[in-house]
């Protein structure tokens, strides 16, 4: 990691952590110190947070915030559609006093401090009676008085804090997982209480075994143990019996079978011993089993479900409110009411709400949703535009062609589902080992029972029972979840959120690491790379002229000038769609844009330099002034990530939707193979399928909507910081800070696999020693209990070694 630290770091934005572009000097005073900001969006959010006296947010957070999306300023107008009672009914209820309880899904919650910020900030807004944020579900529950604060204002308020609110729509899957979580917790709690009680009785009984105890007190203690453990077995362990039975009927051997057998038989035999006053009781083992097994499963389920945000759908990328022509005038209407044939108006900067044909106006749409390309496509009357693309230049009037279900975006969503369902299931290590272990234990137990029936029939039940008890499924059951929990915790601390079910295990076996280009290996944004002056004018003056023109533009390259200080102003600027900008300053005419557009004004303009950049010309009516070269910068940490993977024997490759020569060039620079460029989302998916069919275990790193299908299909997948919600929902790992998280994650995944194997080795080794002793009838119950606990403790301690962080950041 030394090479990474030695590299000169650009100043990170204090709000979002992205590097502050050269020439940007935005500052917000937080905690009495000026802090650098990367963009006006971050400055606005940070200014609001600091201005409300909530500076503490920055001290408390454990991860950088997300960079706010720059949109046209008027949030409230955009959200006004939620004031419509019919629309609001979808996610809110009104009680008898007229108070509204609403549920919002928030994008951009990166750590627990975000919940504090939102709750604190909202509780100061007049009209909000109660606000609480559910971190795991990124959900805001709020109760408000709609006469003081309309819902649209609430949305706008949340948006101004830098989060992306949308209505929270209930889903059966989500309800079900919440119910299961509570049921698991209830069982765990009951088993825990039971374990403590029965454990206390058991200490007295074991002591009695050693130093003698009166028959009447032994009967009393056993009786109460029976009472408590019966309740625990019925209430908490019932789930094992049901699962084992369900699988047995289908002829499958699962871990739950010996568990159910051990618990059931041990309880039955102990109950018989209690009633008849003979033999030995195993009540403490019964409840301890139950508790540890439930604990292991609870921890595992928590890791798996923690960030399982699978409910973001593609439709959420579309605006809820659209401008549509009704009764001869433009009206704002809910998008869901759009019909094919409606005329809609899409303003610059807005997302196109439906597949439509342009009727009036000419403009450009950014289609990175579908192809990852960040330069817009020009459209004119008669051309089709697609739902989910962004109109960048001028307002477009269009006729809706189809409803959402038949749109190209819905087709993309469909291929996401296809990708997920076609994903090859890598059998889990634990499942494979468990089946063998179960068969082995059952075999040994039966053999023991048969042998003891020959030797001493009276002892047969007790000895075979002690074999079942001592085989300790606990250590085996804890081996995987303890390691997974520890690894996920450590990764989270280093800026990687683990979401996927078997992702860590799949990643540990990954043979191919595949990257998307735009937004993943590169920053996904054009920035000014080179200024090539053509006249004898200082560079900063050229920049000032360009910036003065560009502030009137919505084109992606205008962002590259956002940080340039405004020293000049133009008298008037016209945006010529598909060509460039035309401005007048002090009687002189300027043009900035494509070569053909500028040659119209100034025929002397030479060819642009040869470098593979996106060149834009600047000229006046007298002479050519400059060529500006724009490029999408490679992320600084990308070379190290690729190199580390190659060193470890993981093949790296590029799979890009962009068809420009920049892709192969970048791949060569970084030393990775080119798997394909210029591909549609579906073609990317097929490429990955092909590789998987050839035996490769593929991990994919991507960011955009167009990557979502392939992220779903890959064996393990990463979404980088700033990825779209749909891409995040498909990814197993979400990188909060930088691409370096990829390296940290696969290293941790390999370490995790090693630890799991060690745990299994220990559990099996322990059984190999203990089972023969038990089969020989040499193990008293108290020794079995101690052995079992120590074994579980060892497994947990070993797993905790994964908790160490690899590098501080």
């Amino acid at each position, binding site marked *: 990691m030394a090479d990474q630290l030695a590299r000169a770091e650009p100043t990170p934005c*204090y709000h979002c952590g992205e590097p502050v572009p050269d020439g940007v000097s935005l500052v917000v005073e937080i*905690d009495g*110190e000026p802090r650098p900001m990367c963009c006006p969006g971050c400055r606005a959010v940070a200014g609001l947070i600091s201005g409300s006296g909530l500076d503490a947010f*920055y001290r408390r957070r454990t991860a950088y915030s997300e960079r706010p999306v720059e949109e046209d300023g008027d949030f409230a107008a955009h959200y006004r559609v939620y004031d419509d009672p019919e629309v609001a009914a979808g996610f809110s209820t009104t009680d008898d006093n007229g108070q509204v309880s609403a549920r919002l899904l928030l994008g951009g919650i990166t750590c627990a401090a975000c*919940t504090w910020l939102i709750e604190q900030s909202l509780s100061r807004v007049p009209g909000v009676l109660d606000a609480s944020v559910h*971190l*795991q579900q990124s959900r805001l529950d709020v109760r408000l008085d709609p006469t003081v604060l309309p819902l649209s204002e609430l949305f706008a308020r949340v948006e101004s804090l830098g989060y992306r609110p949308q209505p929270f729509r209930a889903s059966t899957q989500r309800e079900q997982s919440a119910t299961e979580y*509570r049921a698991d917790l209830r069982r765990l709690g009951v088993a825990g209480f039971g374990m403590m009680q029965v454990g206390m009785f058991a200490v007295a009984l074991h002591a009695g075994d050693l130093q003698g105890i009166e028959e009447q007190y032994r009967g009393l203690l056993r009786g109460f143990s029976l009472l408590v453990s019966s309740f625990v077995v019925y209430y908490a362990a019932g789930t094992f019996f049901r699962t084992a039975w369900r699988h047995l009927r289908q002829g499958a051997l699962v871990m739950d079978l010996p568990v159910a057998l051990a618990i059931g038989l041990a309880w039955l035999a102990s109950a018989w011993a209690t009633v008849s006053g003979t033999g030995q009781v195993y009540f403490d083992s019964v409840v301890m089993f139950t508790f540890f097994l439930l604990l292991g499963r609870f921890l595992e389920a928590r890791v798996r479900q923690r960030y399982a945000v699978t409910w973001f759908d593609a439709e959420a990328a579309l605006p809820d409110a659209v401008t549509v022509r009704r009764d001869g005038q433009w009206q704002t209407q809910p998008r869901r009411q759009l019909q094919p044939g409606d005329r809609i108006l899409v303003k610059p900067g807005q997302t196109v709400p439906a597949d439509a044909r342009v009727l009036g106006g000419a403009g450009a749409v950014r289609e990175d949703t579908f192809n990852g390309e960040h330069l817009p496509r020009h459209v004119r009357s008669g051309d089709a535009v697609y739902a989910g693309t962004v109109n960048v230049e001028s307002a477009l009037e269009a006729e809706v062609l189809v409803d959402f279900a038949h749109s190209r975006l819905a087709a993309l969503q469909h291929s996401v589902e296809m990708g997920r369902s076609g994903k090859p299931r890598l059998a889990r290590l634990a499942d494979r080992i468990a089946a063998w272990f179960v068969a082995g234990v059952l075999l040994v137990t039966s053999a023991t029972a048969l042998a003891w029936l020959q030797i001493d029939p009276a002892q047969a039940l007790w000895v075979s029972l002690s074999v079942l008890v001592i085989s300790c499924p606990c250590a085996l059951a804890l081996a995987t979840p303890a390691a997974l929990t520890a690894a996920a915790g450590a990764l989270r601390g280093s800026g990687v959120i683990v979401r996927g079910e078997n992702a860590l295990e799949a990643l540990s076996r990954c043979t191919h690491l595949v990257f998307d280009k735009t937004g993943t290996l590169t920053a996904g944004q054009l920035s000014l790379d080179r200024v090539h002056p053509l006249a004898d004018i200082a560079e900063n003056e050229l920049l000032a002229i360009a910036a003065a023109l560009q502030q009137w533009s919505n084109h992606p390259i205008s962002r590259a000038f956002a940080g340039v200080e405004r020293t000049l102003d133009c008298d008037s600027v016209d945006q010529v769609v598909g060509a460039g900008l035309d401005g007048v300053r002090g009687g002189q005419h300027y043009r900035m844009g494509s070569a053909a557009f500028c040659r119209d004004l100034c025929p002397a303009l030479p060819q642009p330099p040869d470098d593979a950049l996106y060149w834009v010309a600047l000229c006046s009516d007298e002479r050519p002034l400059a060529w500006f070269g724009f490029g999408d910068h490679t992320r600084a940490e990308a070379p190290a990530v690729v190199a580390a993977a190659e060193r470890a024997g993981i093949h790296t490759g590029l799979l890009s939707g962009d068809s420009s020569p920049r892709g192969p060039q970048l791949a060569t620079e970084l030393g990775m193979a080119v798997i394909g460029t210029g591909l549609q989302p579906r073609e990317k998916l097929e490429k990955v399928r092909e590789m998987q069919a050839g035996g490769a275990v593929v991990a994919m790193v991507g960011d955009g909507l167009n990557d979502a299908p392939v992220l779903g299909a890959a064996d393990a997948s990463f979404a980088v910081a700033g990825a779209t919600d749909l891409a995040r929902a498909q990814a197993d790992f979400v990188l909060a800070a930088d691409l370096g998280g990829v390296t940290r994650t696969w290293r941790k995944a390999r370490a995790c696999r090693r630890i799991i194997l060690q745990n299994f080795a220990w559990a099996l080794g322990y059984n190999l020693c203990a089972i023969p002793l038990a089969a020989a009838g040499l193990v008293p119950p108290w020794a079995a209990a101690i052995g079992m606990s120590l074994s579980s403790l060892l497994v947990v301690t070993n797993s905790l070694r994964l908790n160490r962080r690899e590098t501080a950041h």
Partner: protein
Amino acid sequence: MDSLYLLIPVALVFVALGIKLLLWAIDSGQYDDLDKEAWRILNDDEGQDSHAQNSSAQDSGDPKP
């Protein structure tokens, strides 16, 4: 030792109460969001302004330029 006949049932009554209380807490949603509560118990101090001054100098671990 005869007191055991009274004390153990009394203990069991308390256990039953404890379980009842726990189940009530789970059902009322108090355990639904463990991550947030784990963080909040350490951070939700209202008197934040008093120590804002002295901790601002070596704060939050963000990389310094």
